[in-house]
């Protein structure tokens, strides 16, 4: 199963003085099981691209095939579109802004209900989705979304997508606006969801450090085109090119480079801070055979049981 995109173009406000070509001939193949990161600065076309993957933008030119659901321009097929929305789950930026029901359970049920599932199945999925995002179902199901904390709201919104049991999960800037702890929670949640629910995950982020935490393949968008499509460990060899389009390289890559330049031997590919830590400890143990240290260490300051920690009761900062 694959997602195949062929020669995708998209133009905003065509034939007006405000015309803008957002996508210029994008060709891509995404495989089932990919853990894909998409980076690019604002206006690079990355958001426009993912909107196409579940039919939110009308195809102007090109072809898209998502797990054998075929989209071509000027063809309207409602049942295809419905199947597509059930196949590709899309978590928007600040997804908590889309909550509208008076209870958490009802809001999470919105997606599965729209899919035409029966009440029993909907209820089952709602419970599972809420538990999957690390919230206590019994405690939270009847509460109003508006009284939850920022991090909890976001997880409820994600549960609303998960309840549709999509095969592909797309998240657009999933950690935007969260504090460090909330960020860590969402990051470990994403890894958890890939394992338990949606085997193919695509994350858009402008924080390269964040993306190195999980993605195995990275696509760089620039000026409406795919600039790079590489495995993570190869991408950051192109540091200068990335820099020229205003993208940073991960801190771990930068520090590892500095160490290597000064003669420190670090083994393996280093992209994430965890990679860096492990390489440093290995190098240390090689040199200090008499007093080796435990190699089993982890970068994050926060530890979560069952992948997701409970949030406690941190009220909103705003009145």
């Amino acid at each position, binding site marked *: 199963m694959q997602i195949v995109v062929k020669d995708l173009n998209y133009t905003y406000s065509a034939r007006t003085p405000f015309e803008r070509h957002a996508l210029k001939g994008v060709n891509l193949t995404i495989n089932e099981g990919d853990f894909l990161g998409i980076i690019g600065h604002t206006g690079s076309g990355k958001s426009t691209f993912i909107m196409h993957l579940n039919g939110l933008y009308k195809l102007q030119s090109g072809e898209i095939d998502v797990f054998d659901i075929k989209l071509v321009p000027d063809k309207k097929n409602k049942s295809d579109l419905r199947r597509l929305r059930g196949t590709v789950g899309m978590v928007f930026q600040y997804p908590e802004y889309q909550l509208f029901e008076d209870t958490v359970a009802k809001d999470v049920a919105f997606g599965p209900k729209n899919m035409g599932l029966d009440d029993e199945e909907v209820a089952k999925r709602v419970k599972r989705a809420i538990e999957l995002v690390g919230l206590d179902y019994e405690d939270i199901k009847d509460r109003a979304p508006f009284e939850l904390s920022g991090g909890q709201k976001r997880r409820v919104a994600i549960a609303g997508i998960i309840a549709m049991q999509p095969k592909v999960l797309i998240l657009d800037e999933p950690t935007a*606006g969260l504090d460090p*702890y909330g960020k860590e929670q969402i990051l470990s949640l994403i890894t958890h969801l890939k394992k338990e629910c949606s085997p193919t995950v695509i994350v858009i982020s402008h924080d390269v450090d964040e993306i190195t935490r999980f993605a195995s393949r990275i696509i760089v968008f620039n000026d409406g085109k795919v600039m790079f499509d590489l495995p993570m460990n190869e991408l950051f060899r192109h540091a200068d090119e990335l820099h020229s389009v205003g993208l940073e390289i991960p*801190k771990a890559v930068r520090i590892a480079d500095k160490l290597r330049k000064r003669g*420190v031997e670090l083994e393996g590919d280093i992209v994430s*801070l965890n990679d860096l830590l492990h390489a*440093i400890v290995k*190098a240390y143990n090689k040199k200090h055979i008499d007093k080796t*240290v435990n190699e089993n260490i982890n970068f994050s300051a926060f530890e979560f049981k069952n992948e997701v920690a409970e949030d406690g009761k941190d009220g909103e*900062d*705003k009145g």
Partner: protein
Amino acid sequence: MATAIKLENVSFSYPMNEGEEHKAVNGVSLEIEEGTFVALVGHNGSGKSTLAKLLNGLLTPTGGRVLVYGVDTADDKKIFDVRSSVGMVFQNPDNQMIATNVEDDIAFGPENLGVPREEIIRRVDWALEKVGMSEFRNATPFKMSGGQKQRLAIAGILAIKPRVMVLDESTAMLDPKGRDEVMNVVKQLNREEKMTVIHITHYMDEALDADRLIVMNDGKVVLDGKPSEVFAEHKLLTKIKLGVPCVTQLAVTLSEAGIAVDPRITDEEELVDSLCRLL
């Protein structure tokens, strides 16, 4: 040095359902010296945004006093003195522009204060130059990047000629590039114009260069000092869900594993140096 802002045992409570209250700020006393760059850090819900709004009288304390250059913010008659001394930039760049045109928007503050026309034009020029956006004078902010919009918001505040600038999570919604742009502008203002800056954030990395770092938790100030002193308390910082900057976290993790690295390191070069000595 003169004191710019003084908080005397300040508390603030939001009314909640059924007559209960939520104490967002709980007995905070602080003195902020003129010209300093202060970073105020805390996780969501720690009370830092409420504290920010107390600084220019958008909120008035339910207990204690806030003095801005000696003027009590609760004094209704002097509220415009307070607001023109303490400028405030908010989180969402889209919700701070009033006009659809850059120069009109920047002129809005001084127009409100009744500044003469020629002086307004001078201030608009100056403010745009300070944020490095002179060429956008007649542009519309609608299509700009988050970083550019936020720099314009800063220019709009600069035009009222404040002595203190409060940034209330003004970098939270920006991408790394936008964040850098805004931070560079603010640092420069602090350096060149001797502007007192109070930068409220939850990115620990942005607190690294501050003169002073204040950490809030549960409505109270829990740590207050030079960044390197504050980061030395990494255990406490982790406990209150904040953590330490990336480099410090590396040093801490390595030192906890038993490698002799100073866990208080905040500077990348310093970390590289000490690792080179060990490896």
